[in-house]
């Protein structure tokens, strides 16, 4: 009996499901960042708004990367439904706290997929995920650094204005 399924697809259906879930997660992230950009803009934090617009675009690129990988491997990439996006935040700081939370969740999710790949000896997908692991290092650094600004500058007086100004300048020093 021929191995018909292997002829059609390289990744197992389990990994395919996990990758599709990741596609959805990246799409959600992108939408959440867009909503954060809107909130910041409405409340006068224009630099932060620009920062979140950039983040939204990056997450969208991540989503497409996963999406195309699934297709290239002969899998079925599912266009995700994105609903229940939070539109209002209580404070400027809360926006950045949630941004960091979101990045932590993404890192965790990629780690989980990596673990599954290791278990099923799917080295191709592991190699593909390496890029994302490196990317998460940068994403988490940036989100954490933004929150740090709240500590070092402080929110009193013109603090929030200062923080906003510096958020746009956050860069990850690439090793």
């Amino acid at each position, binding site marked *: 009996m*021929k*191995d*018909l399924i*292997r002829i059609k697809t390289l990744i197992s259906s389990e990994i395919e499901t996990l990758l599709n879930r990741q596609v959805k997660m990246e799409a959600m992230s992108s939408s959440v960042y867009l909503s954060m950009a809107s909130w910041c803009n409405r409340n006068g934090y224009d630099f932060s708004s620009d920062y979140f617009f950039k983040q939204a675009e990056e997450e969208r690129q991540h989503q497409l990367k996963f999406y195309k990988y699934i297709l290239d491997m002969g899998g079925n990439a599912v266009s995700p439904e994105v609903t229940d996006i939070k539109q209002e935040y209580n404070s400027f700081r809360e926006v950045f706290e949630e941004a960091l939370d979101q990045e932590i969740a993404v890192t965790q999710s990629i780690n989980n997929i990596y673990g599954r790949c290791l278990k099923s000896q799917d080295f191709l997908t592991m190699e593909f995920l390496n890029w994302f692991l490196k990317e998460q290092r940068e994403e988490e650094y940036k989100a954490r650094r933004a929150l740090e600004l709240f500590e070092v500058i402080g929110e009193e007086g013109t603090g929030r204005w200062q923080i906003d100004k510096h958020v746009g300048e956050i860069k990850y020093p690439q090793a």
Partner: protein
Amino acid sequence: MQEVITREPQTMTEVFKTKVGGIYQFDAERCWFVDFAGKMAKFDYRNLLKLRKAVYNVDIEGILLDSSKSPDVEIIFLCACDHCYVLTLMQIIALKEILQGAFVMLELNNIIHDKLYRVPA
């Protein structure tokens, strides 16, 4: 329109079979035949996956616990596929068992191919 196919059984390899039906692989046409509910239906790779998804997505528990008078009949309709099944709950459970068994066997076949033929240890 449904194409009901009859074929010589020896040209097909049995993948998984129960008392009520089975799935057979036909290497020459790279497809599978699902023998269930009184018909032999041809499925290619994509459609077989769609069938699996459709059957797995039926909420069996939900139907069992549903006390309304609606009939427990499910229509399994696959997009871009010639076949359609109208099944009772018992048939859904039976078909699910067949599909689960078949996919385990196909995975086993994949492992055997990997270990024995592609890169023998």
